[in-house]
Structure formats: C-alpha cells, structure tokens
C-alpha cells in the first residue's frame, strides 16, 4: 500500500534518514521500532508531507506522493496520530472528533458512533475540553480523531508514550480491532515488546538506517533485538 524506496531526509547538515526502503502491505500492521533519534518520526512526518525529503520515493497505491503537500496527502486517506497525542486542548472532545473529519463533507453520525463504541469513555466526556482528559483518554481521542477521516492507512507515532502499562494494553487491543476493520496500520514504537507482539511485519531502525526486518515473531526471537530492545 505504501512503498518507501531509498528515502533520505536531512535537517540542515544532519542526515536523519539515510537511504531507507520498506513496504507496508494493505491490511497489515507494520511497525518501525528503534531508539530515540533513529529517524522513525522523521520517516512518518515525511510520508505525511510535514517534512521535505532530499531524495527517494514514497509511493501510495502506486502513486508518487513525495513532494505533495500535507492536505492532498491526507485527503488520499493517509492519516497521522502524532507523537505526544497533540489533541486540541481548548476544543471539546466532540469538536476534536469533528475536526478530524475536516476533509469529509458527508454525515459524521455513523463514524462518531463507531468511535464512541471503540472508546465509550469519550462519549461520557464528549462535552469536556480535550485538555482536561487524562493521558490515556487523550490518546484515545487522538486515535478517534484520526479515525474520523475514514483513513485507509493510519500511521501512529508512539501511541504508548507516557501511558500506564494497563492503558497501553488497551490501546494496542484497539489498534488490532481497528486493523480488523480493514485499516492498514503503520506503527512507530519504542515499546518494542508490545509493538512486535501486535505487528505482522517489523523493521528495526538505528541511526537513520533500517538494520533488521522480519515478521513480528521473527524479530521477537532475534538475539540482536532481544539484547537491544527487550532485555535478555
């Protein structure tokens, strides 16, 4: 569905992403794991057009999207759940969801119902300001907001960041649930254990390069991954 080839991204003189290639097949959960500064977020931000690439190619269903602006990329059905959630703190929960559906002109009722059924907590709090929610609820809102655009592929940047382990488990269960509904998922995580258990495919990124790839299971059993990310 998304095919990244020989992608290079620079911030000034610093090479954040060095010639990476990977693929996200339709209907699967793919994860990019790696430590801080490995270039994971930069990769996602480049796919959404928020960061300009130096060279390479990003194809979405066979169409080149590198160099297009964010609005046209998002309108093709690619959505980003940004790092640190970035919900709109002074908008109500319901308004947050409606902003997520900004590019749609049809009725939202059905999708709001769906998001509420995934996250009943959001329905209880639909009149509250987003900033008054707890961290876990804000993450739910960020996921719900992304779903409102009816994405074909949802890219998530560290959904487990700063959340309690129990909440993280819930979030990953819901990611699987969303995937079952036909949404392809590209997941970026530092929580390698959780991510690899959930993902069909995994890639390991280190200092701007992809050093390992395989199915989630394979990577979980890989000794290098075990040593670096999972603890022996």
């Amino acid at each position, binding site marked *: 569905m998304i095919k990244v080839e020989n992608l290079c991204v620079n911030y000034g003189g610093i090479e954040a992403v060095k010639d990476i290639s990977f693929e996200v097949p339709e209907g699967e959960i793919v994860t990019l794991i790696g430590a801080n500064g490995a270039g994971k977020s930069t990769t996602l931000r480049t796919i*959404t057009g*928020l960061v300009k690439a130096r060279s390479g190619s990003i194809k979405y269903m066979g169409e080149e999207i590198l160099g297009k602006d*964010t*609005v046209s990329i*998002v*309108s093709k059905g690619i*959505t*980003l759940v*940004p790092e640190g959630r*970035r*919900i*709109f*703190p*002074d*908008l109500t929960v*319901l*308004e947050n969801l*409606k*902003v*997520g559906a*900004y*590019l749609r002109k049809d009725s939202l009722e059905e999708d709001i119902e769906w998001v509420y059924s995934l996250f009943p907590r959001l*329905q*209880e*709090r*639909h*009149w509250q300001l*987003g900033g008054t929610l707890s961290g876990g609820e804000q993450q739910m809102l960020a996921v719900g*907001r992304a779903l409102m*655009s009816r994405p074909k592929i949802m890219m998530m940047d560290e959904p487990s960041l700063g959340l309690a382990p129990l909440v993280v488990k819930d979030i990953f269960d819901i990611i699987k649930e969303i995937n079952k509904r036909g949404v392809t998922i590209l997941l970026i995580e530092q929580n390698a254990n959780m991510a690899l258990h959930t993902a069909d495919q995994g890639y390991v990124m280190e200092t701007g390069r992809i050093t390992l790839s395989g199915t989630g299971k394979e990577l979980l059993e890989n000794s290098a991954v075990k040593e670096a990310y999972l603890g022996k």
Partner: protein
Amino acid sequence: MSKESKSPYLPATTQKHKGLSRTLSIVVLAAFAVFLYMANSGKILGSYELRIIRLCGVYAIAALSMNLVNGFTGQFSLGQAGFMAIGAYVTSLFIIPTAQKTAMYYVEPIAPWVESLQAPFIVALIIGGLVAALAAFLIGFPVLRLRGDYLAIATLGFSEIIRIFITNMIPITNGSLGLKNIPDTANVWWTTIAVAIVVIFMLRLMKTSYGRSFKAIRDDDVAAEAMGISLFRHKMLSFVIGGFLAGISGGLLASVVGAITPIYFRFTLAYEILLIVVLGGQGSITGSVVGACILTVAREWLRFMDNGFSIGPLTVPPIAGMRMLVFSILLMIIILFYRRGLFGSNEFSWAGLLRVIKSIPQGIKRLFTRKAKAEGGGS
C-alpha cells in the same frame, strides 16, 4: 444539535436550566431594547451618555474583529487600527454631503471622483468594510507566513503604513486635517443592532467547520495541518473577516465621533482594542462585548480624577491625564491576576453568573480564614 442536547452525559445543571436561562436572556434583552428606545428619545439619558453607549458598540465590534484573529485563530495580529482607519475614511467619504466636502479640502483641491461619492449610510458602511477586507487580503499574503511576535510586529507596521498613506493622500483624505461634518447617522440603534448581528454571526461561525478549524489552528497548528486543514487559507479567511469587521467598526466610529484625523488611528488604538479582548477573555465572544462596555464606561467615569480628588487626608491636585494613570494600574492588576480575562474562553451564561455570585461569600470567607491562619502561624 437536538441530539446532542438530549445526551445523557451532559452535566445535569446545563440541561435543567436551559429553558429558564433562555427566558431570562429574552427578558433582559427586551428590557434593554425598551431602555434604548426610551434613551434614544432623550427621556432618560443625555447625548453624552448616549455617545458612550454608541462607543461601547463601536469598540465591541472592533474587539470582536481582533478576537476572531487573535483569540479564535491564535494569530497575534495588531493591525486592527489600520483597517478601522480604512473603514472610517471610506464610509465618511461616502456619507459627507458633497458641498461640505468641497469646502473642507482647502490645502489641496479634492479629487473629483472622491467629491462625487455618495451612498446611503448602510451601503457606505459595507463598502468601508469591504475595502478594509481587501486591504487585509493583500496584507495577508506576506504577513500570514509569520507567527507570534513577528506577525504582531508586521501587522502593526502595516497598520502604520496605512495611516501614513492616509496622511499623504491629501486630495482624497484631506491629509492630517482629517474629515469633519460626518453625519451623525449611527445612533444607539445602529451600533447596538450591528453588535447583535456581529455577535450572532460569530457564535454561528464558531459552530461551523470553519470555526472549528480556526480553533484547531490556534490550539495546535501542526496537528491541524495533519488533519488536512489548510493553514494559510484559514488564517487568511479569519484575517479578511477580521478586516471587514474592523472596517465596519471604523465606519460606525466615524459617524459617532463626527470628525476623524489620521492621528486617531495610531497603534495606541490597536492596544486599546487588545486590552478589551484580553479583559473580556481571548476566545470569548460575549467577553469582548462586556469588556468593550466596561473599558469604554470606565474611561469616561474615571474622568473625575483629572479634576483632583481626595482620599481621606490625602489630596490629589488636578493633573491632566491622572485618569489614564489609574486606568493603566487597574489594567495591570487585571493582566497580573486575571490573565484569562473575565470570561476566559467561555461564553456568558446565567448559570455561570449564578456560580460566581454564589462563590462570592465563600471567597470572602476564605480570604479572612487565610489571613487568620497566616497570623496564627506567625505567633
């Protein structure tokens, strides 16, 4: 909408009092209309008081215009004085009678096409607003690429440029002599109804997808862009609507004060409007209206200070400008202790008013107990 209001998850108080607060609002607004009617016929208030009420309306619209850009879209713009100047001059040139225009321009003769401009007040007002909106559109292209303080400086600069243009386009604007004999058309009805229309427009706008996008850009522009919201288009839309409203308020201002000069539209005017917005609460529509009324009335009421006054044994001699000093101190207190303004980003509601009134006795109690505790701790 009706589906939302029936939701079982809303706090009980908001639902219970909905009908009651609506009735209360209608009663108060009707009473205000009767009051305006009596006042306008000269039965209760003199022309001085009426003028203050009209100025309240003018400043309320100017504040709403700035609140749209600053409070709702989060773009720190200080260009409102320039757009008001454009609105004021364009409207005035359309409504001053031709004979008086000819007599006024004695430094340089008036441009013939300006002399022939004539339109009814409402048309002149809207043309004034549209010209200001056009100016906002043109200025928006370069400045809306900036953010924060830089945007404020750039818009302030453009506003001064507009003022200098007006000062130097003597055949059109009569230069620094300004325009006089502007017909006194904008009575209390004009200003009040204009405020009402703008308030309803803003309340509606904030419920549309445009309004939500403005607020989303204010809260987090990167996240908003990731949702597919075009930042530039929305900032521009907000800036142009803001320009239009500022133009309208400028046109009304010209008619209320009767004579305008470029000096009137210096950057200090933008600061005054900014103060209203901050006092009322950034992102609060009703806050801007209440803030405009408080500030306009307070500025007039504090006039007694210029004549000298005494507090107990202390006698202050008459000093011109004393009221502005006190005024500034009051404002500093507000900015220091009530940074979110009177309303924060909420709107006025009767339930809110009731809560505030109910909390006053407790607040006083707490003030005293804290003092007692502090004293107890000291001994």
